[in-house]
């Protein structure tokens, strides 16, 4: 069966150059970088070279890079570390309604500990208004954390404008750049980031490795891990050496291939959006039509449900994702889609395609063709259409539903 992978926002395959580089540090160079002997020194040097590469890829200094286990850990460490290091100055955190759970659930946990949280709304495209950030700032604000690009709807946030505001007020600004890095330029100075999160497996490195950038001079301490003195006291635990080597190589390639990669992805994205909107009725593009990451196209297909579409696509060899309740593991559809004002019943019909370097225009054709027949089949089975009167009266599950 033909297989087409359109879920690169979930994860990417490890590219051969990265795997090859990493392999040496799985099989041969097994030393612990903390060790004083030859084996340790050999690996220590490689780890520091990788750190240079990661730093260079985002316009940072190597000393400002901490290796972590991935995006969630970087987000958690950034937010928790800033908040705990600065809690003598204030207790207010500003974030947005469309953040990844790694940020949102972290700040919710901090709220339970007594911190004040402002979750900024977004517009219909999922975009934060920088003026809302300005208006939310109080004398007690100690952190602003806003993502660069959204995983579910692809919208790119105006982080450059937000950072001007945080700078004026001297408030640390954390940017989750997991989805943007490798697709659009991510430079910590241009964006105005004080802390910035990236993840390896979104850019053709393996899972389990990420990095946190912390600008020199930022009042931040690592507050979650208690252990050894690795990463200059900023991340206890023996380094994931193969992962770090892979991350270094992947970042080097991401920057070298950025222009070519983003041109390619933009072409595929524009083609899939154009074809889906033209060939299928009752479909909405979710996220911003223009200010979105290359390679990311997300939709809501009305009157049908996301998981049914995913299963149907999978039967035809196509891998995509959805923000429907059935795929989120809860009874609620994606918080991101709801934050953009999409009604529950429409959000259940969401499908995200995210393209990678190996995809082609032929894959776009195959997806659109397949999707047309899936939508037709599922709609023929669906009791709802544009005339359907949706009322909660007949629903037995009302108690679990917050609509």
């Amino acid at each position, binding site marked *: 069966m033909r297989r087409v992978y359109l879920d690169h926002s979930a994860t990417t395959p490890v590219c051969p150059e990265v795997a090859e580089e990493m392999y040496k540090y799985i099989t041969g160079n097994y030393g612990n970088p903390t060790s004083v002997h030859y084996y340790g020194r050999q690996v220590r040097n490689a780890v520091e070279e990788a750190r240079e590469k990661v730093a260079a890829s985002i316009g940072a200094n190597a000393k400002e890079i901490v290796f972590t286990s991935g995006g969630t850990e970087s987000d958690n460490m950034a937010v928790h570390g800033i908040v705990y290091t600065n809690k003598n100055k204030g207790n207010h955190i500003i974030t947005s309604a469309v953040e990844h759970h790694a940020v949102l659930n972290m700040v919710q946990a901090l709220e339970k500990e007594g911190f004040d949280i402002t979750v900024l709304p977004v517009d219909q495209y999922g975009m934060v208004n920088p003026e809302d950030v300005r208006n939310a700032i109080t004398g007690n604000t100690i952190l602003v954390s806003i993502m660069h690009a959204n995983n579910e709807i692809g919208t790119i946030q105006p982080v450059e404008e937000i950072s001007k505001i945080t700078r004026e007020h001297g408030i640390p600004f954390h940017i989750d750049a997991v989805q943007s890095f490798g697709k659009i330029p991510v430079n910590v100075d241009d964006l105005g980031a004080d802390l910035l999160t990236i993840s390896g497996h979104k850019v053709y490195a393996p899972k389990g490795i990420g990095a946190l950038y912390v600008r020199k001079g930022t009042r931040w301490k690592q507050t979650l891990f208690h252990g050894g003195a690795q990463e200059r006291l900023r991340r206890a635990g023996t380094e994931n050496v193969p992962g770090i080597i892979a991350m270094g190589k992947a970042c080097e390639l991401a920057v070298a291939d950025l222009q070519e990669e983003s041109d390619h992805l933009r072409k595929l994205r524009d083609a899939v959006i154009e074809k889906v909107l033209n060939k299928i009725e009752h479909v909405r593009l979710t996220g911003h039509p223009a200010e979105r990451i290359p390679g990311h196209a997300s939709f809501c297909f009305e009157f049908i449900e996301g998981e049914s579409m995913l299963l149907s696509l999978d039967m035809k060899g196509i891998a995509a994702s959805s923000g429907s309740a059935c795929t989120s593991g809860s009874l609620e559809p994606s918080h991101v889609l709801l934050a953009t004002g999409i009604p529950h019943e429409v959000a259940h019909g969401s499908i995200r395609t995210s393209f990678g370097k190996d995809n082609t225009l032929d894959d776009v054709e195959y997806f659109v063709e397949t999707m047309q027949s899936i939508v037709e089949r599922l709609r023929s089975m669906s009791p709802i259409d544009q005339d359907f009167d*949706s009322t909660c009266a007949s629903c*037995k599950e009302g108690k679990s539903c917050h609509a």
Partner: protein
Amino acid sequence: MYTEKVMDHFENPRNVGELSNADGIGQVGNPTCGDIMKIFIKVDGDGGERISDIKFKTFGCGAAIATSSMVTELVKGKTIDEALSISNKTVAEALDGLPPQKMHCSNLAADALHTAIKDYKDKKYAE
């Protein structure tokens, strides 16, 4: 995550559609929750009340579609009393089980059937 039977009923659902001359119609769920099941039954009164025909339309996930299909297969040709003895649990078991998180939100097909039978009885009683 789904059993082969669930996937079979999702891929080749039995008795999809509507009955224009239905004797009873039952609908449960709503689009906000992500699942709606609508069941149409035709009841043959001769020699005891039997469900002579049944169709469904469902908006929902794979489990919602598979349970709808399965319930129609289970009750077609059965008496009303037999049909009333079928529960959501019976349907899930007939599919060799459902993932735990699907047991409540997407396993409403028997409820839709019971609602359709009630609709049939209400209409009949009203006559």
